[in-house]
């Protein structure tokens, strides 16, 4: 058999049938949250259909949940109805749900891996574009729309055409203070937000191999911001050690067989990719976005671009519109941009390693006077508990950060956490689109270290200067 990519192996092993290049692929894990599932459950009810395999589905409310006091439930009646609808649907269909108040509740893409519900070799879907996160485990994982959510619920399958395969190789050693988030933003800066459209991306190279599972999840999470529905990393010891002992991991008597299979989940020597992109780890610096698309990004020692220097009229118009929305002047050095708020959280950067890294920067310092709010939102109840056990909550609180309950929070501001018009935020989330964190809000995407550094400085600052 000819050399195959990891993507080939994952896709081909799940093909139930294929006709004229359109395949029906089997889905192993279906993660569900409250925003994109109500219409799917309703569709099943109307058609009198049942779930094909109930124990493949795991549900959790995350987008609408409050991150402050939860003892009185959700104040916004529309948000509350959506979460209650999920509760009711899970009861009606017999689906396991980690409800608000359960310590396992959290952002769906943090909860799945944490529970061992995401395993190597799986196909994982969720009605959420950041499902690409789970590819960090050598899984084929991508976001789907609500019609497909219903389709997977009813048939355990998805109609798919195979994507092209792209390899993004990052070789070398990352500098101190440079993270998986910076790799992700640097890649998007290089290939653009449509650079990965039509592709499944495999992240490879020595810099990727050196990343923890948390780092790999951050990277795969943002594959969708490069346009790729799926991102993935080959299985290695780091993957296997992470999975071992988690609640949904293989049982002891299944473990050896599972590991034997998982060890085959890498691209073969000489496997052919449709596109290859290469970056040198040493050349990647802490990144900050300046515009309204993740590709509008530069290094911390860079400046806001000058649209007058852009020859392409559509791009020039895009830059002009972005600068106007962001309230930025061309050629402003990034480290002279003051901020109003800081958000450390989201499915990109709310895992324990992210919180440790941010706390290390914040320790013994204080949030700057011009920063109105700096909030830390752990990715799950279990991340929160772990952080508290390590005393990270105390570090954050002493430094003037707010320590919140787990959820999606101000990544997309569906709950009460949001930017006011014109407010500027250093955010560890994944999208800086207009209005994403609140109407008129201005988002700059950064790593947790860079967000903490901006919080204490009051403006963007090279975190490496604080760490040395």
């Amino acid at each position, binding site marked *: 058999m000819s050399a195959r990519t990891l993507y080939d192996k994952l896709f081909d092993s799940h093909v139930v049938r294929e006709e*004229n290049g359109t395949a029906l692929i089997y889905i192993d894990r279906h993660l569900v949250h409250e925003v994109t599932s*109500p219409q799917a459950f309703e569709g099943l009810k109307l058609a009198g259909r049942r779930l094909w395999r109930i*124990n493949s589905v795991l549900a959790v409310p995350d987008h609408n949940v409050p991150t402050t006091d939860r003892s009185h439930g959700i104040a*916004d009646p529309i948000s509350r109805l959506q979460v209650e609808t999920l509760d009711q649907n899970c009861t009606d269909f017999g689906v396991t749900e980690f409800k608000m108040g359960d310590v396992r509740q959290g952002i769906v893409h943090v909860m799945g891996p944490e529970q061992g519900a995401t395993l190597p070799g799986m196909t994982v879907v969720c009605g959420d574009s950041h499902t690409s996160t789970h590819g960090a485990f050598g899984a084929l994982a991508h976001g789907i*729309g*609500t019609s497909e959510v219903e389709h997977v619920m009813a048939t355990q*399958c998805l109609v798919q055409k195979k994507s092209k395969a792209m390899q993004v190789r990052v070789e070398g050693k990352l500098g101190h203070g440079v993270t998986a988030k910076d790799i992700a933003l640097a890649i998007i800066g290089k290939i653009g937000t449509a650079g990965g459209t039509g592709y499944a991306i495999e992240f490879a190279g020595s810099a990727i191999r050196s990343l923890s599972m948390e780092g790999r999840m951050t990277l795969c999470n943002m594959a969708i911001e490069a346009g790729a529905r799926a991102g993935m990393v080959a299985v290695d010891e780091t993957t296997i050690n992470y999975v071992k002992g988690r609640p949904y991991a293989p*049982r002891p008597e*299944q473990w050896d067989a599972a590991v034997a299979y998982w060890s085959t989940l890498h691209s073969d020597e000489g496997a052919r990719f449709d596109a290859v992109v290469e970056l040198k780890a040493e050349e990647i610096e802490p990144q900050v976005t300046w515009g309204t698309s993740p590709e509008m990004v530069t290094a911390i020692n860079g400046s806001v671009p000058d649209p007058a220097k852009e020859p392409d009229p559509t791009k020039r118009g895009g830059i002009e519109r972005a600068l106007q929305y962001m309230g930025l002047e061309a050629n402003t050095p990034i480290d002279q941009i003051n901020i109003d708020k800081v958000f450390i959280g989201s499915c990109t950067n709310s895992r324990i390693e992210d919180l440790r890294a941010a706390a290390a920067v914040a320790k013994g310092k204080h949030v700057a006077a011009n920063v109105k709010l700096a909030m830390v939102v752990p990715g799950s109840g279990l991340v929160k508990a772990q952080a508290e056990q390590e005393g990270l909550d105390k570090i954050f609180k002493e430094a003037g950060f707010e320590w919140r309950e787990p959820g999606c929070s101000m990544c997309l501001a569906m709950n009460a956490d949001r930017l006011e018009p014109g407010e500027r935020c250093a955010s560890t989330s994944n999208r800086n689109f207009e*209005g994403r964190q609140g109407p008129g809000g201005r988002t700059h995407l950064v790593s947790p270290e860079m967000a903490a550094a901006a919080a204490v400085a009051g403006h963007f600052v090279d975190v490496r200067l604080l760490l040395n």
Partner: protein
Amino acid sequence: MHAFTQLNGLVVPLDRANVDTDAIIPKQFLKSIKRAGFGPNAFDEWRYLDHGEPGMDNSKRPLNPDFPLNQARYQGASVLLARENFGCGSSREHAPWALLDFGFRAIIAPSYADIFFNNCFKNGILPIILPAEIVDSLFKAVESTEGYKLVIDLETQTVVTPDSQSYAFEVDAFRKHCLLNGLDDIGLTLQHVDEIKAFEIKYKQAQPWLFN
């Protein structure tokens, strides 16, 4: 699902690249548990001068006169002309639901984000890809010609301009078949129940830990 066969539709231009799904339907409207009713809030932040929230009477809100969808000449448009990477960002199917509810049945752009592109087909919207230079010429034609309409024929895979210029487009055969006939995907897949079951049995033997 609505079938799509032929459309003779008024075209409205949206001259921006990378239009994301947060712009197509802002997050506050995703709290609805219904599929319908998103049309009045399509492009909400660009379309209205105030901030929209669910439950507002949209007919009383101040419109942004500069936004093409609000201009008299484009009222009744069913074809949206857009730039590259249209529909990027989240997987929210509320985006095509909002476009459909507004009255769009076809989109023409040089490229789309994958998930959005796929979601359109599930809702009877035809997302057409044409080369950037042709899209560019259509933008010029739409802006200079009031009442500019295009005839879109899915069967023959053509877009025909008022001056009888015809542009061919590609569409996946399976998606075309479903769209032409308004077929329900789930019903089609369930014709293969035996194959799915047979696959599942073999698969469970090989990787039993996936079924714990």
